[in-house]
């Protein structure tokens, strides 16, 4: 394999991997704090993408401008889902047996409802935003780098840094971390745990609002798009270590590079088999993930 090809592979792997990591951040945050695997994660990304597309289609908003609407909108949606639906589970858990799968099932129900509501509203047609920036490249040496993908890549690094800084240094961030470590102790020291949960879930979903807007310039949208991103995100989070913010970005990049390299030697279909295999192996051999604390 020549050097140029290798450089191309690394570039492709890094770009798509960064995007995988960014998309998975919210899943990891929510799991880290609330111990919930949000099965509807991919569907919420899909909703964000539809929203960005809708704003472009009706108001002509550039997706990057639409992000200023999709982020708060998705925060609101996440906050509502947590405070109106999932919170019931927590109030019940206090009294009754803890059923770790209930949350997964509940969010699976939300996934079915969201995917099919979008199908009912927007129909099955494939939608896409057509903006010129989608094809713009800059060059590193001879290697073209697609600008919107690069922006999404940078965004995931920025969001991850911002998020981990904020969790460490702000009051709210500290409260979130305290809740994640010990819910009961947090309650006793006066933290409003249900509120923290609402905010965390909202935040996790708001990140999807950002990526929804950043992805529409180059991805086309269908109501069923969520599941493939959702499954990718599960793999990323497990790879990186569940609940670890930086692990998530690293996990994404590892998966991206793995797929990029594997796809050069085998067909994409076999590469998909390998990435599921990698996922199983990591879970079995190192369940804490690459970056997780053992």
């Amino acid at each position, binding site marked *: 394999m020549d050097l140029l090809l290798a450089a191309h592979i690394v570039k492709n792997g890094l770009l798509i991997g960064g995007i995988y990591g960014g998309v998975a951040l919210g899943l990891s945050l929510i799991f880290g704090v609330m111990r919930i695997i949000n099965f509807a994660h991919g569907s919420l990304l899909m909703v964000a993408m539809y929203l960005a597309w809708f704003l472009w289609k009706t108001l002509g908003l550039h997706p990057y401008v639409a992000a200023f609407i999709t982020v708060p909108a998705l925060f609101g949606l996440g906050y509502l889902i947590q405070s109106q639906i999932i919170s019931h*589970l927590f109030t019940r858990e206090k009294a009754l047996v803890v059923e770790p799968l209930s949350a997964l099932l*509940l969010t699976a129900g*939300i996934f079915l409802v969201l995917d099919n509501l979008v199908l009912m509203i927007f129909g099955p047609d494939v939608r896409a935003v057509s903006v010129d920036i989608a094809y713009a490249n800059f060059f590193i040496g001879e290697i073209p780098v697609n600008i919107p993908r690069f922006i999404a890549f940078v965004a995931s690094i920025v969001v991850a840094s911002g998020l981990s800084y904020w969790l460490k240094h702000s009051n709210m961030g500290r409260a979130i971390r305290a809740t994640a470590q010990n819910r009961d102790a947090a309650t006793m020291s006066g933290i409003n745990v249900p509120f923290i949960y609402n905010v965390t879930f909202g935040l996790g979903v708001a990140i999807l609002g950002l990526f929804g807007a950043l992805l529409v310039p180059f991805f086309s949208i269908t109501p069923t798009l969520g599941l493939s991103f959702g499954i990718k995100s599960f793999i990323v989070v497990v790879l990186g270590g569940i609940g670890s913010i930086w692990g998530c970005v690293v996990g994404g990049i590892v998966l991206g590079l793995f797929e990029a390299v594997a796809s050069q030697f085998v067909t994409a279909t076999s590469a998909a088999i390998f990435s599921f295999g990698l996922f199983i192996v990591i879970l079995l051999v190192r369940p804490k993930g690459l970056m997780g604390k053992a």
Partner: protein
Amino acid sequence: MFGTATPLERGLIIIGFLCLLVLPFVITNPYHIHTATMIVYFAFMAASWNFVCGYLGQLSLGHSVFSGVAGYVTVLMFTQLGISPWIGMLFGGLLAAVLSVAIGSLTFRLKGPYFTLTTIAFAEIMRIWFENTDNFIGIPLKGSEGLVVPLVGDSWWAFQFNDKTPYYYIALGLLLMIVLATIMLEKSKLGYYLKAIRGDQDGAEALGINPTKYSLIALSISAFFTGIGGAFFAQFFRYINPERNMGIDMSIDMAIMAIIGGQGTVLGPILGAFILHPIAEITRTTLGGSFLGLHLVIYGTVLALTVLYFPQGIIVPLRRILARISGRAKK
């Protein structure tokens, strides 16, 4: 026979079963028999899923792989070797059981959502592999094209009937089998062990129960039955392909029906199938595609509501109502 069932419940169950038994004499329209067969079939599949997942409290979303593999075995044994699907079905079920042990021994140490995600990953690996393999060591799998069972005509040996009624009774027989097996499970040591493992794995281990061993036994029985179901499906439609028979949709269907009905009970999964499948059927036939996806919105909503308000399934409030009725009757 029905554990803690009240006389009223027993009566209803027996009446229900008798109704199912005489159904083909009352309704003669093949379409209705076809639909009834599908309902009974899904009840069987949900009950097979429940056999391990319901009693162990582990959520598998990869069970379709067992039905798919066994379906392929049955069809291939028939088309390549000329072996009757009745025998192929057993082989398919056994292979599914072996496969489940291989998968289970790796994954059962994972719990909760981790287990669920690995079952999805295994099923997806198998599906993608089947879809992209035309020929495996001389066995014509025909990739995503799927396999067709050649038409032989009315023949018990070939598991093919011109009439729908025999299929219906076979499905009903399978359902009866899984119900009896589940009742036996509930009464057996295995059942107690599973419940102990579900409640507290470490505690069970301390009592000398080997959780992996008993989980695997239950899983292999469950996979066997699921495989039989897959073989039935392949014979009923005389067609099998990886997308439908190994895809995640089928696994989700099985799990949701069992969970909504009431996992970890004998009749819960059956109840789930008898409620949910008709919903899908009715929304599809009456709306005919004008409200795309409506039945899945209903599924999702019912699932969410069940998890929130009846975590043990809707069989629980139902039994409570029945208990109240019979209590009142006694007074």
